């Protein structure tokens, strides 16, 4: 048996999020505490249930590391008085001194200490008191803060197979030589004496405590899956699973079913009610349909085979779903019997934001933004027509715009619904259901793919891991909605500062940018929008324009993992080609094999620019600035140098590569560009300008290729 330190902190039930973080923190705190106190060990493991955290330090050394600290003293040839003062100050005699490099040094030896004698202090002062919870409480005169009251402490140090019960005190709790098992099973509330580490594990198991959270999780997954497999289905993997692992010490997985009456409800509503209020696990089939069977993870083995538990849970679930059904039916009745106009007008009842009016005002503004987009050609009309043609539908552009308008009018309406007032996180999702009920047979199926789920998805993307809306209409509405939010709040001076962004404006701006970048790849329309990279046709607010630019640059940093400096240095050059090419260009950059040559290429371009500027011959410069005239300036018979010959040969190819242009630019700088012969100089400068022009084209093509490649791959891995 290896040396081992065990510390169990038994408490009252600690909330899942706090406990999960505590496990990570305590491991690090323990490792640090041991290292700082010169105690060697192999591994620290931390296990936890809702009621206890147990730290196990494996292979802990019996003694601390002995150390020698060297303290520098006065010069070796110092006055005796000063030397004596020094000796007195450090409480030593001259025998303790050594001389090194002309100075006196004291060697302070710290002997190895038996950790048995110091571990209690270390635990109290370096471990327990360093633990901080996001939310904590005090409960007794010690004024110690912990997530919930501490009930018991058990500390065993096993050295050479001898188990030492360590005495320590924290938060007025005196450590003991026992622990407690499960609240209701085994020994229940009776103390269980523990005399060794091995004994601890055995006794816990006997008393229905599964200490290892991973073991509990496996048990739950295995048993839940067994139930799901019976129905050829699988467990819905959501946040509930991780939380449920910490809602018990002995997981008992039970099966029950949702009463038939409620299965008509939208599945998101059912799942949200069951997860948020009751922590039930749901089962779904291969088509993502919700099955009526659900799973309760209980914390007790009962004498009646869980009959009462299941009965009780069913009652509660029925009451919850009955409430949900009541609200849902109220909503349906309302939407079926009220005109869209009245429904939209009711948005006047909800305030959007102080000073910014109601949601009715917001919807009005978004409609007017749509109009501006139409008039200023910010929506690519040709591509939109292409979109409609692809669906083989006779829908005209005008009808298409009217669909977008209708979606805009309806997208916020569910904020007034009873369901969303009860469960705000269902906004958008319920809106989609209600809209479909209102418009069951009035839209052509062929076009429906263009606006399907637009209401549900117009809030997307809601985080870096979330997708953008799939349907083109969804993307348009999402972009306009976010743009309105940004413009209004920026106009009110509510832009984010430093770490404060209470209105999630960074996320909104990033959403706009991602729609611009990724939209092509999910809706299969090239360039739905004609937004300038300076964002100056998107908004008049210059601060907002800069904000968008910043977000775009940061997005490139995060996505491609290249430095902001590189982006800033090349941004102005490449941004003339628009948002897509700019992104693609930096994607080229991030691809390391190209990076070196691209950087070199740029430095050459800079020299090239300076050279053309410094030629001081504006007539010549203007002549060759016009790209069509370049051909006229190249006298193929006057190619004096091998470099010029090489370059001209390259230029006569049809498929010029990036590497070749790179080589040409290097070569052109090997010859003298400004000569006394005006024609020669003109020709050489013309070659230079043409190379620059071709470089731009190739860079642009490469960038576009990289842009396409990047997002094609990304969308594929997301699906």
């Amino acid at each position, binding site marked *: 048996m290896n040396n081992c330190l065990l510390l169990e902190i038994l408490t*009252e*039930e600690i*909330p*899942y999020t706090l406990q999960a973080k505590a496990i990570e923190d305590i491991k690090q705190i323990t490792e640090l505490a041991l290292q700082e106190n010169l105690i060697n060990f192999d591994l620290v493991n931390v296990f936890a249930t*809702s009621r206890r955290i147990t730290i196990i330090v494996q292979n802990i050394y019996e003694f601390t590391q002995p150390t020698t600290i060297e303290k520098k003293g006065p010069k070796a040839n110092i006055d005796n008085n000063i030397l004596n003062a020094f000796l007195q100050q450090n409480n030593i005699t001259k025998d303790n001194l050594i001389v090194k490099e002309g100075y006196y040094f004291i060697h302070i030896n710290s002997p190895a200490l038996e950790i048995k004698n110091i571990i209690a202090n270390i635990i109290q002062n370096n471990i327990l008191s360093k633990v901080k919870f996001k*939310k*904590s*409480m*005090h*409960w*007794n*005169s010690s004024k110690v803060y912990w997530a*919930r*009251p501490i*009930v018991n402490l058990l500390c065993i140090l096993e050295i050479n197979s001898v188990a030492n019960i360590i005495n320590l005190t924290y938060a*007025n709790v005196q450590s003991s030589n026992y622990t407690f098992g499960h*609240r*209701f099973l085994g020994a229940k*509330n009776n103390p269980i004496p523990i005399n060794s580490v091995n004994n601890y594990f055995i006794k816990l198991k006997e008393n229905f405590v599964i200490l290892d959270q991973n073991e509990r999780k496996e048990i739950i997954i295995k048993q839940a899956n067994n139930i799901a497999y019976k129905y050829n289905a699988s467990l819905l993997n959501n946040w509930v699973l991780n939380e449920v692992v910490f*809602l*018990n010490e002995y997981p008992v997985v039970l099966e029950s079913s949702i009463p038939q009456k409620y299965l008509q409800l939208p599945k998101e509503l059912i799942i949200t009610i069951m997860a948020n209020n*009751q*922590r039930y696990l749901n089962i779904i089939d291969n088509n993502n349909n919700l099955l009526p069977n659900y799973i*309760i993870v*209980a*914390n*007790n083995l*009962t*004498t*009646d085979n869980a009959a*009462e*538990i299941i*009965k*009780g*849970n069913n*009652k*509660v*679930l029925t*009451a919850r779903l009955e409430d949900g059904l009541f609200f849902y039916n109220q909503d349906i009745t309302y939407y079926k019997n009220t005109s869209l106009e009245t429904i939209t007008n009711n948005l006047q009842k909800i*305030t959007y934001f102080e000073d910014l009016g109601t949601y009715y005002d917001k919807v009005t503004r978004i409609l007017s933004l749509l109009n501006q987009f139409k008039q200023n050609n910010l929506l690519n009309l040709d591509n939109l027509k292409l979109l409609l043609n692809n669906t083989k539908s006779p829908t005209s552009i005008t009808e298409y715009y009217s669909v977008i308008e209708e979606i805009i009018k309806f997208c916020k309406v569910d904020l007034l619904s009873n369901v969303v007032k009860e469960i705000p996180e269902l906004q958008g999702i319920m809106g989609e259901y209600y809209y479909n009920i209102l418009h069951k047979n009035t839209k052509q199926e062929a076009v429906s793919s263009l606006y399907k789920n637009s209401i549900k998805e117009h809030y997307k993307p809601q985080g870096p891991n979330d997708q953008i809306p799939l349907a083109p209409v969804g993307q348009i509405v999402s972009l306009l909605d976010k743009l309105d939010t940004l413009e209004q709040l920026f106009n009110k001076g509510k832009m984010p500062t430093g770490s404060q962004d209470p209105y999630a404006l960074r996320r909104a701006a990033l959403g706009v940018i991602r729609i611009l970048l990724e939209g092509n790849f999910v809706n299969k329309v090239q360039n739905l929008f004609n937004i300038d990279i300076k964002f100056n046709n998107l908004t008049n607010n210059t601060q907002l324009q800069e904000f968008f630019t910043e977000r775009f640059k940061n997005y490139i940093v995060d996505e491609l993992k290249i430095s902001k400096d590189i982006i800033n240095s090349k941004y102005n050059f490449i941004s003339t080609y628009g948002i897509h090419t700019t992104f693609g260009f930096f994607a080229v950059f991030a691809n390391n094999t190209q990076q070196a040559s691209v950087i070199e290429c740029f430095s050459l371009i800079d020299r090239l620019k300076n050279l053309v500027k410094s030629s001081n011959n504006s007539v010549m410069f203007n002549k060759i600035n016009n790209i069509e005239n370049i051909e006229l300036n190249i006298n193929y018979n006057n190619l004096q140098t091998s470099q010029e010959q090489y370059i001209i040969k390259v230029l006569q190819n049809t498929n010029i590569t990036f590497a070749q242009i790179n080589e040409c630019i290097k070569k052109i700088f090997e010859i003298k560009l400004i000569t006394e012969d005006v024609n020669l100089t003109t020709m050489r400068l013309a070659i230079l300008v043409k190379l620059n022009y071709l470089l731009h084209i190739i860079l642009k093509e490469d960038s576009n290729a990289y842009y396409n490649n990047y997002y094609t791959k990304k969308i594929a891995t997301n699906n």
Partner: protein
Amino acid sequence: MNNFKIKDFQDLITALESFWINKGCTKLMPYDTEMGAGTFHPSTALFSLNPKPFSACYVQPSRRPTDGRYGESPNRLQHYFQFQVIIKPVPTKENITNTYLESLQHIGIDSHKHDIRFVEDDWKSPTLGASGLGWEVWCDGMEITQFTYFQEMGGISCPIVAVEITYGLERLAMYLLETDNVYSLPWNKEQNITYGDIFFNSEKEFSNLNFNYANINYLQQQFKMMEDECNSLIKNKLVYPAYHYAIKASNIFNILDARGVISAVERELYISKIRNLVKQCCSLYVENYKNTNLQGY
């Protein structure tokens, strides 16, 4: 400790009272003005700031006007009963969560047959300026108790932490007596008197009052009067009467809310006014009664 076999609503009250009296609590009477929850009772709200130990239990009728359903909902009421337990300091001899579980056993919730869990719930009362950490206690998925360690009351950090245990009596009774409709709960089984016999009619009429009939003008004036009176009493250092008026103000706000005349902005305003009154009462209480040599609370 004998386990009761609860046969009606009054049994449940007796059982809980006898259990907690046995554990050292003093049985108090409900406070005699309208309030939204047992926590408003001075023996909880004010005593929680007193440094002297104190343990009590009491039934408190509670009014939540917005929850009225005219007697049509089987389980939602605008007037209902809470059973409050308040213990300060947190007991050290016996763990209070274990004691609480014993109380469940005592009223007939057998831990061998049920799944009892402590599920995180951190409690806040904006009007009382109070907050605490604790749990909802679930029995087979249903919440039956709110369990809270107070950390703050009236904006003042509690010097000695009190533990508050609040049982929802109707809900518990419906669970124990296997009734789905609160009005069919037997209140006095022997005399064949149900909960509905006593409360159905008044539920209906009070729902009407709260949603349709209460005079808005009078209510608004009354709120102003309660506020002014409370402020004046505070100036005169009469903390118990001042707090009495603060509670009244809070109840009037609840009725105005049910009446549907309070906008989102106004709600914040009302809540902060009430909180301000309560804060001043609590500060005054601490000042008046901080001397632990004083007899009484």
